[in-house]
């Protein structure tokens, strides 16, 4: 704010001396500090926007992702939010409920071509728009599956739970590998809800029943208990590496042949393709009973509730939603562009592109995480429950504890009404 004021003062001074059009400053916060690729695309968009009209001038401030949410909360507490900020998709309802964010002036018509996961809707309104999405898949090698005579699943006919269990138990016998499957428990935080929440949903459970709202009978219901027992079994039978897996093994274990398969995101796909080429398969999520599911919604742009420049902020977001920018982002980061038209313009997601299968995965399997302001507590409890169960805690007691904690949070917030 102070900087904005300085800039405004400077702008007024220059305007008086040299007749420059005074553009109103818009501040934009982004979570990608330290990531040069994203920064160069984003500054490209900003420069284009600033040059395209005379009313607004967007200024970028970058924050490290690890602590971005804390920075935003601190700023909100101080009434110093920027005009435009980006938000991790599943957290958006919490920020909308807290009035950090205000509904966009963007209509359903504007976003009709966008993947559903890239549009943040809450309470019937659009609060945020993402320029890309991400998807997870089961990374595997054709040669390995064929060697063990395992059926190669397809998007139309993914593995069933039994097939999936058979696959990992069979691969467990193969002494070439330390583990038949890697779930990536080295990655803490949101990865748990993003990567494993959909598995729970596929079993028939969920973080909570958003409508009621309660977690009772959902996160600790029969289906969730079955999921929990299955989950624990993966670790007691040493089918997957545990919570103390180190980050390096997560990054290179599959590539080095330590793990036969890996549950991983499209951002890791190019490195794997480079290593295994045509042998590499991106398999869809298995169907645990209630349909195969993977997580949706990545980082999205929204407008802060305290912004005095709603129009400018909306103009910028609408400007950034052009296909060419979606394509630029995708080319720079390997993420999935938000529209089919943009996908055609990219190297990896055009028809026959190396990663085009991920576009299909997102289109077909992507499921949003519970859309509720209670999500930020639910995801923490889910992460804790999964790691405790992985480390041998009693399944029923642990899921009960997570359920109680989520319900307590609902109660303390009067059900976020």
């Amino acid at each position, binding site marked *: 704010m102070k900087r904005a004021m300085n800039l405004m003062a400077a702008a007024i001074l220059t305007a008086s001396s040299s007749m420059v059009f005074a553009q109103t400053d818009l501040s934009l916060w982004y979570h990608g500090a330290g990531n040069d690729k994203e920064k160069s695309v984003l500054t490209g968009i900003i420069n284009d926007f600033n040059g395209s009209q005379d009313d607004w001038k967007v200024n970028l401030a970058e924050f490290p992702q690890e602590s971005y949410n804390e920075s935003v909360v601190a700023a909100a507490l101080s009434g110093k939010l920027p005009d435009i900020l980006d938000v991790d998709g599943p957290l958006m309802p919490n920020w909308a409920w807290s009035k950090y964010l205000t509904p966009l002036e963007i209509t359903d018509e504007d976003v009709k071509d966008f993947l559903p996961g890239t549009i943040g809707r809450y309470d019937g309104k659009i609060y945020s728009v993402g320029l890309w999405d991400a998807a997870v898949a089961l990374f595997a090698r054709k040669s390995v599956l064929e060697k063990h005579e395992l059926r190669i699943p397809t998007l139309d006919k993914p593995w069933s739970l039994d097939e999936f269990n058979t696959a990992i138990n069979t691969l467990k016998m193969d002494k070439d590998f330390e583990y038949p499957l890697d779930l990536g428990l080295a990655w803490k935080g949101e990865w748990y809800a993003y990567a494993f929440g959909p598995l729970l949903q596929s079993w028939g459970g969920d973080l909570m029943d958003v409508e009621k709202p309660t977690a009772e009978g959902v996160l600790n219901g029969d289906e969730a208990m079955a999921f929990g027992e299955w989950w624990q079994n993966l670790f007691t039978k040493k089918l997957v590496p545990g919570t103390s897996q*180190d980050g390096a093994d997560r990054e290179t274990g599959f590539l080095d042949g330590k793990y036969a398969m890996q549950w991983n995101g499209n951002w890791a796909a190019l490195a794997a393709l480079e290593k295994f080429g045509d042998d590499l398969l991106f398999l869809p999520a298995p169907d645990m009973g209630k349909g195969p599911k993977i997580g949706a919604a990545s980082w999205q742009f929204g407008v802060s509730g305290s912004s005095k420049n709603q129009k400018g902020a909306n103009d910028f977001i609408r400007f950034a939603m052009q296909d060419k920018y979606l394509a630029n982002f995708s080319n720079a980061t390997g993420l999935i562009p938000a529209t089919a038209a943009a996908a055609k313009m990219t190297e990896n997601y055009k028809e026959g592109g190396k990663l085009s299968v991920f576009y299909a995965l997102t289109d077909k399997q992507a499921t949003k995480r519970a859309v509720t302001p209670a999500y930020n507590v639910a995801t923490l409890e889910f992460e804790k429950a999964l790691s405790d169960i992985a480390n041998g805690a009693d399944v029923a007691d642990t899921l009960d504890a997570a359920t109680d904690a989520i319900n307590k949070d609902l109660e303390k917030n009067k059900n976020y009404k």
Partner: protein
Amino acid sequence: MTDGKPKSQNKVGWLMALPASSLIILFLIVPFLLAFWFSFTNQRLVSPNPTEFVGWSNFSDLMGVGSLTIDPKRDAEGKPVYKANGDIQYPRMRTFTRNNPDYEHLQGMREWFSIPLSNDRKWVVLAKDALFMKALTNTLLFVAIVAPIQAGLALLLALLINQKLPGINLFRTIYFMPVVISIVVVSILWRFIYDGENGLLNAILGFLSFGLFEPVDWLGNPSTALGSIMAMSIWQGVGFHMIIWLSGLQTIPGSLYEAAALEGAKRWQVFRYVTWPGLRNTAVLIMVVITMQAFALFAQVDVMTRGGPVDSTQSLVFQSVQRGYEKQDIAGGSAIAVVLFLMVLSISLIQRYMSRDRS
């Protein structure tokens, strides 16, 4: 010093104490009082709902406990039923604590610990907030182990480098190395050291035992995680307190040592009758500081384990921060801060009372 002119001292005393004191009041005491107030409300970090006064409920949520005596499952002859692994099978606690009208006072509680009784029965203590209880016991354990060891080792090191030897400055610098690096950084480095598969510690122990040592997943195993954090904390903090001991050592006049040497005192006697008495004020300082720092255990846990595995490294400050920031429950986080404050305050009052009694 009640001599002279108390009136004039009044003015100058306040004048000299005021700048620092007012800053402390504004930036430490006022925020603490705010936290104290929050702990009696339902204050959220940010929320559209108005804040309400809720009395003691945050505290009763934290500290509520209950107990229950339970019988094992018995067969027809009244003998307890055993599980596959040889343990006696008890009825599940959740049958009492979840929606059981006969045990309404236990609703939502979790087992904290249990004590075996005669005839295979056991007495189970349940807590409303088992996580808080776990954090509390971990923190107390951490303080009880880390504070004395760290203070003692720091004194030994200070004595070691307080010698007049050529090149001693080099050692002084090296010993201080771990302190120079922030605890966050140290924690990152030690994650490499403690790693279960590629860790340095396992490699060294394996080397020293000619390969007999079975690698341990130090931070991933509930029985070693807290101990590993303690060891690292001692390692990291010992240089800090060494410096304080060292400055204390230097207030002891050299003439006393010379006199002791003239009288032919042994090294132990010199320490007992010259060094230690001269360190009295420093010792008080160190014990206070070390205890406070140990109670504030946070960064190591945050970086290395985030309270896991299975809550084996939860700490009070970590819970306070997690509730306050991540769960946006600033009231609940503040209540923990208040409990911690009152606990440490009473411990230090007891400490003070006991040390005053002696002198």
